């Protein structure tokens, strides 16, 4: 059932980005076989926006408002993936056309726009959303109108919708491996949990606390600050008082910048690892705002770093920079967003149809060997099997990867005892 696309770097040809070239070389055969167009009646029985040679999809992210900072990378990744797929001949012989809508960092707007995409535009799939709140807002819409959403962000889990493919990690995948690693490699005994005050950090810290206590170790403090908070001197004093081995941080957005700058200024040198900072919220994107010198030495636990050296990623980073500029950085979510169109394409081709129900049925077990993060596979629970890596932040704003789980981690959105 599964469609596999092998990566094989090929020589130069035309001005297509590197990755596309390689993908095209690989997929030429398969595409050729498929391009004998399958009749419209066959691939689209539910009235989606598919014609003889095009298929419409939606991109739904915030271009304006506070979340635009975070969501820009995802939009870029999704557009890149779509362009690459089109350059390879599209999906079932049809070029992908995208309709981009702005969620404006406002959850009702997300719901409104998703309804527009599904009801008015009848798109075959939507790539979008970033925050949990925006996903929660659109979820009933996708379930009601039977749409398909590819959601890129690492998130708290506790959800499994037949209408969503979660291309980022759920919390246990990201957190457990990270904590295991600091315990083993750094001999950590005490933890301080800090987060912005909303559902993802709170759930993540709950999972972290449970795991830490199961290991027989100690959580010495847990604190939350309102989103957008910019003064962290008090919490830094609490660190100094409690002297945790590990500061486990899930601060987001503008607060992040303030937190790391003030941590550094307060004389906590993260490169000395006393205490060690382990974050699950700072990707390369965030470092741009924080400044590499301010976060030098912190560890991050996620599935993707730009510095990964496998062939897929080298080609991906090259293509991304060719498309969006040299000074751009790619974070975990950007990569996960990039997977969305590819996973959808694979599922559609496996199903031989754009029909949502058939694509859904074909999705579990879909594999990508070309993913920048390496091999991924869709679990029946609609999340991805993936590896978790530990990166060590450097002054140039990149992570040096110091650890990688040997096996793919099974996604477990409803971990025992957490719901």
């Amino acid at each position: 059932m599964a469609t596999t696309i092998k990566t094989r770097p090929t020589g130069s040809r035309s001005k297509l980005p590197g990755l596309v070239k390689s993908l095209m070389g690989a997929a030429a055969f398969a595409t050729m076989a498929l391009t004998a167009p399958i009749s419209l009646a066959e691939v689209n029985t539910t009235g989606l926006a598919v014609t003889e040679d095009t298929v419409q999809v939606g991109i739904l992210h915030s271009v304006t408002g506070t979340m635009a900072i975070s969501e820009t990378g995802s939009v870029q990744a999704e557009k890149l993936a779509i362009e690459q797929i089109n350059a390879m001949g599209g999906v079932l012989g049809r070029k992908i056309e995208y309709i981009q809508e702005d969620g404006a960092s406002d959850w009702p707007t997300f719901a409104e726009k998703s309804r527009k995409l599904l009801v008015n535009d009848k798109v075959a799939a939507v790539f979008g959303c970033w925050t949990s709140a925006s996903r929660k807002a659109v979820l009933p819409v996708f379930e009601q109108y039977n749409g398909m959403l590819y959601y890129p962000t690492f998130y708290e889990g506790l959800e499994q919708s037949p209408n969503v493919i979660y291309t980022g990690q759920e919390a246990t995948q990201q957190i457990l491996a990270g904590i295991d690693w600091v315990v083993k490699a750094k001999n950590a005994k005490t933890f301080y949990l800090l987060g912005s005050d909303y559902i993802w950090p709170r759930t993540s810290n709950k999972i972290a606390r449970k795991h830490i206590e199961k290991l027989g170790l100690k959580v010495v403090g847990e604190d939350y600050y309102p989103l957008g908070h910019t003064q962290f001197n008090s919490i830094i004093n609490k660190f100094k008082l409690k002297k945790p081995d590990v500061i486990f941080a899930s601060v987001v957005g503008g607060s992040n910048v303030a937190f790391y700058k003030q941590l550094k200024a307060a004389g906590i040198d993260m490169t000395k690892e006393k205490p060690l900072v382990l974050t699950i919220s700072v990707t390369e994107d965030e470092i741009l705002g924080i400044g590499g010198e301010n976060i030098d030495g912190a560890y991050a636990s996620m599935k993707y770093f730009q510095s990964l050296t496998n062939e897929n990623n080298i080609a991906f980073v090259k293509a991304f920079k060719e498309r969006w500029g040299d000074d751009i950085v790619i974070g975990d979510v950007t990569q996960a967003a990039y997977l969305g169109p590819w996973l959808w394409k694979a599922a559609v081709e496996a199903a031989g149809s754009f029909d949502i129900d058939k694509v859904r049925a074909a999705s579990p077990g879909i594999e990508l060997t070309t993913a920048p993060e390496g091999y991924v596979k869709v679990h029946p629970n609609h999340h991805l099997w993936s590896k978790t890596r530990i990166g060590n932040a450097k002054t140039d704003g990149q992570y040096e990867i110091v650890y990688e789980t040997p096996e793919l981690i099974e996604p477990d959105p409803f971990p025992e005892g957490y719901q």
Partner: protein
Amino acid sequence: MFADYSTSELMSIFAMQGFAGLILFSVFVLMALGLAIIFGQMGVINMAHGEFMILGAYVTYLTSNVFADYMPSLFGSYFFIAMILAFIAAGALGMFVEWALIRHLYKRPLDTLLATWGLSLILQQIYRSVFGAREVGVTLPDWLMGSIQLTDIVEVPINGIFVMSLAITISLIVAILMYKSRWGIQVRSVVQNRPMAGAVGINTARVDRLTFGLGCGIAGVAGSAFTMIGSTGPTSGQLYIVDTFLVVVFGGAQSLLGTIASAFTISQAQSTMEFFLSGSMSKVLTLLFVVGILMLRPQGLFSLKVRR
């Protein structure tokens, strides 16, 4: 919660916590001074105050890039140049805004709120178009990084000291300007009786423009300083606006001393509570405290009982 610690450790922590409160105090003073002038003296509700601060931050970012590219040897001192440029840029924009918008609205204070809110949206979008939606990282000179080790535990962040000295300097300058200079007398006379001030030959339009420009300029300097401790992005300015207004209103809008006293009260309350409670709850309690006091004393902390 303190059972496990020795007395000296506790003393040190309290010392540092007090210092954290002082830094917060300085931050509030810097945020609020510009607004205290604009809102307190001129009665203009400038909702774009945060955006003026962010303008200062972006100017600092640009200056740091210019220094890094062309004069790396002088990089250590770029911050002072940046603050001056930030003052000039924000002040100039402020004067332009006063000329284009505010001067038509002096009799309608609530309308200045709407107009400046519109202005803040436009500025945000300009920042986004020019600098991108992402936050930019401002590189600080090395001497501003790190902290001074006083005892084993007590460490004082250098940028905190810098922010504090800046707050003190600017407060002093403003106080001197307001209460000692000829211009200050003019400002205060315009505030108290506009027609009369005009009648005795004060160019009220010019005084207004300069006052507004000064308030915005101070916001720019504050924004420049905040690149050390906060984020610089198109919407970062929004983070400051509520706190800033509360500080000014709580202090009794017309009094600079009141603004400083209120910044002190609020910062100490917040930072003490933050130490004992979670960050969110202490924020809520601080706001409730301020609102509660304002209900009891609507004129703010410092206001003269005057004959009507």
